[in-house]
């Protein structure tokens, strides 16, 4: 093979992927870099964005308890959403997997389908259900469980309920995928050796689907921490999380550098959690991936 041809073959993948690569460098990498730079600029009510380099925004975020509280709330909600999603999503994936056709297919579409429905429409449903005269409160009052309507709207509880609904399918998908790789013969062997259903679940199934549960949790946590539409609708204008805070700085206060700093911090936090959790999963469950 001539050297010219070798060179041509080596450049072929780059030519094929070139157009997409150009777009991603121009419209993803450069804008992200510009946003990081923006977070170091100064801003004033009358002067607007002042392109000097300053740590002012970062100092504000690090020292002002207002920002600390919002980030704390963001991650508290994300943690709650993740825990609840796993607690109800993993058993549901297991139950779905034990169903026979045609029910399995039908219910899988019902469970995964909402992922394709606009998050605004789904959150609107929760806003209707959770209002002070909504069906949930009507039911709670009728059953005598509460004396007065529970304030779900504009509360963290309401946000958690709606976010669990939005993100739950990701846990089901992830656990479902690892259940597909499970060899049913192992379960049968355990049963034939006298293991109870609980023992099979705890000693055979759970260890094998653990990577699926973990990867589902990471996805849910990352998406919950950066969710925007659901916290904005359920939380209203006052109960803010990191993403709605960034939105307000950009489109209401117009303090773009501060908003950029909030966004960059959110990006770093989410990236650190994804990378950290993946490292942990790979090290802890290396044998499952072989």
């Amino acid at each position, binding site marked *: 093979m001539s050297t010219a041809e070798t060179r041509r073959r080596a450049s072929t993948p780059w030519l094929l992927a070139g*157009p997409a*690569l150009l777009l991603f460098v121009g419209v*993803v990498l450069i804008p992200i870099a510009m946003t990081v730079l923006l977070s170091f600029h100064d801003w004033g009510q009358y002067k607007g964005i002042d392109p000097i380099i300053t740590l002012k925004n970062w100092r504000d975020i690090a020292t002002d308890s207002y920002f600390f509280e919002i980030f704390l709330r963001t991650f508290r909600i994300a943690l709650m959403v993740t825990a609840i999603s796993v607690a109800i999503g993993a058993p549901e994936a297991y139950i779905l997997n034990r169903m026979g056709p045609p029910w399995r297919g039908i219910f899988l579409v019902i469970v995964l389908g*909402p992922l394709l429905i606009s998050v605004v*429409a789904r959150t609107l449903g929760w806003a209707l259900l959770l209002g002070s005269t909504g069906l949930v409160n009507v039911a709670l009052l009728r059953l005598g469980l509460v004396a007065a309507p529970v304030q779900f709207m504009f509360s963290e509880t309401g946000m958690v309920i709606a976010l669990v609904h939005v993100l739950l399918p990701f846990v089901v998908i992830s656990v479902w995928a690892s259940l597909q790789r499970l060899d049913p013969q192992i379960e049968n062997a355990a049963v034939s050796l006298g293991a109870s259903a609980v023992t099979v679940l705890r000693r055979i199934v759970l260890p094998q689907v653990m990577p699926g549960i973990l990867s589902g949790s990471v996805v849910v946590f990352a998406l919950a921490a950066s969710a*925007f539409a659901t916290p904005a609708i359920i939380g209203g204008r006052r109960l803010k999380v990191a993403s709605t805070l960034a939105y307000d700085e950009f489109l209401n206060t117009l303090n773009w550098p501060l908003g950029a700093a909030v966004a960059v911090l959110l990006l770093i936090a989410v990236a650190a959690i994804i990378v950290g959790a993946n490292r942990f999963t790979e090290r802890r469950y290396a044998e499952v991936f072989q």
Partner: protein
Amino acid sequence: MSRNGPLALAFHALFIGFVLAPIVIVCAVAFTPEGYLSLPSHGLSLRWFRAIADYPEFVRAFRDSLWLAALSSSIAVLLSVPAALAIARYRFTGREALLALFMSPLMIPSVVLGIAFLRFFTVIGIGGTFIGLVLSHIVIVMPFALRLVLAASTGLDRAVEHAAVSLGASPLTMFRRVTLPLILPGVVSGWVLAFITSFDEVTMTVFIASPATTTLPVRLFLYIQDNIDPLVSSVSAALIFLTALVMIALDRLYGLDRLFVGAGK
């Protein structure tokens, strides 16, 4: 295979109830004959669906959303096919990094992308334009299109292509007559998934949309932030019906579990 016990089935029923509750309530409220938010207890009415037509902002946003989704998913697929072939067939330095870059819009929070696009488009002077919307949507739907095209290209039998070449087919003919038909299911499903993703996107788009060029979910979101009335229910219900149709088509075409779980089965 062991069966689910009564306790498991009860859990399952509650789970399905939880999943469907908000979707059912939106659709139910949309049919109310009353002038305020309520369940249709005195018969069904289409008045709130007819009301959508009297609200030109929603109609225009719907049209813009359709155009935006069609354009951005088509361009994303056009970029994905050669990129997927490069990644599936060649082993080259930077291959992993390239794939990670193309998949990065899934990892970067949409809020961050929205802010980055807003800053970038404002600086280069296309802030609030349709071109900006299309560029940003190509980027966010690329991972979905690429993943499905990649799955189709990886499973491709190379022997058929070699046969075509040995029979004298040019690379272009080979691609058009052999490769493309073989990866077509992946390409079409990738396009549909990209279309839905673009059509539903709200978090990133809310930053870069302007009152003149906006999408239906963004218009709906901004409306809901101000007030919730039966009109937003009927618009949402219409969205849900449309999505359900696409979903059934996708399930028949590709299988929803395969679509979400990936090619591994």
